């Protein structure tokens, strides 16, 4: 597999429910491989320094900034990108609440919101602020994003996992 130390690694990663075969440099970030080899361009390169959250994907259901994760670390884990979400309540809520402007940060925010609603369907304002503080919106559309996640949580706080 990939533990032999070679500089080019052939490996399988599990993305959006599919097994995908990729050839990577050990130094490649997950973000780079998702975009450049798998064509999954929903995760956006922003700061590429772990600050902005535009590249957020889920790793085993938890939000991770894919610019600060090596692709080789993804082996054995389930990766979900924005392309892996279809018609989820949080996506609909973003539309309904106009929770985007230029849209560049939107996939990262949605992935983070999706994970929050699934892991903590009873999240309160403090937790929402803590989680979403990981993402930056240059258009400053925070209020609408806040409304979107709250509408999903409020729709059935006890069934967050089923909602999504």
């Amino acid at each position, binding site marked *: 597999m990939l*533990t032999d130390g070679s500089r080019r690694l052939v490996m399988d990663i599990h993305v959006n429910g599919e097994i995908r075969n990729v050839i990577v*440099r*050990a130094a*490649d970030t997950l973000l780079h491989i998702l975009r450049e080899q798998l064509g999954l361009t929903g995760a956006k390169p922003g700061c590429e*320094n772990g600050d902005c*959250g535009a590249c957020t994907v889920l790793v085993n259901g938890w939000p991770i900034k894919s610019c*600060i994760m090596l692709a080789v670390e993804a082996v054995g884990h389930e990766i979900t990108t924005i392309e892996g979400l279809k018609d989820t309540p949080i996506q609909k809520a973003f539309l309904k609440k106009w929770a985007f402007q230029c849209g560049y940060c939107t996939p990262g925010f949605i992935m983070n919101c999706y994970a929050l609603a699934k892991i903590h369907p009873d999240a309160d304002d403090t937790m929402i602020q803590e989680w979403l*503080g*990981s*993402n930056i919106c240059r258009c400053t559309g925070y209020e609408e994003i806040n409304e979107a996640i709250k509408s999903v949580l409020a729709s059935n706080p006890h069934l967050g996992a089923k909602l999504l």
Partner: protein
Amino acid sequence: MISFDFEYYKPTSIIEAVNLFQYLHQKGKKPIYYAGGTEIITRARRNDLSMKAVIDIKAIPECTVFQFQDNKLIIGAVITLTHLSEVNVFPLLSRTSSGAADHTARNKITLGGNISGRIIYREAVLPFLLSNSQVVIAGPKGIKYASIHQVFKKTLQVEAGEFLVQVITDKNYINLPYVVARKTKIQKVEYPLATIAAIKRKEQIRTAFSGVCSFPFRSLEMEKELNDRSVPLRVRIDRAISHLPGPLLSNVEGTAEYRKFVLGNTLEDILEILEGERGC
């Protein structure tokens, strides 16, 4: 993008990791141990690191431990800061660690990485300095146990080939009254002007700091002054600040003078809370 290549290894035992390090070191690969990797990736992207091999320690069972055993809390080096908060068996640690970076980043940042890193702001070490914790370090000479005070002096003092495996904390420290104060200039998610963790044990207050000087620290001289209740509170604080172990940081987050102002006021709040027994 990281502009240079390196090799990636993922050993499944301590001995394998240590042997790999020695082998790669002899081959001139300048290996480094890798846990969460957030600091390594960002520094490598800036060409601030030039390793030719990384040794990922996340598959080493001893590094993934998180349990109580014989009245000790044992935490493996690759436990993430988020996991510490979610499980919340050591509230002081959960609270202090949750000040590092942001929530999503903490899903990747590990306890060992935060303690062993080179970044100035390493909040996760503060509870262990207050609790006189032990650390387990693996290296070419085997496994060694040491007081955190012996090995953490501004940074984790490990020899070539050594890495942090676990941190062990006496259960008696887990539920002591505590206060954590993290002061930032404007926003919640930014580097702090000061992070102060404090506990009260046997009527004595212990304090540890990050973001005040260019390294995290606990100062017994400062604690002696802070606990001298024969003088007014503000005098105790001013005397304590005069014993800082290094120059106050002066950077974009705040000037040294402003930090001193914030530090004094925050210590006053903390002492009032803990001496009034209102610790969290």
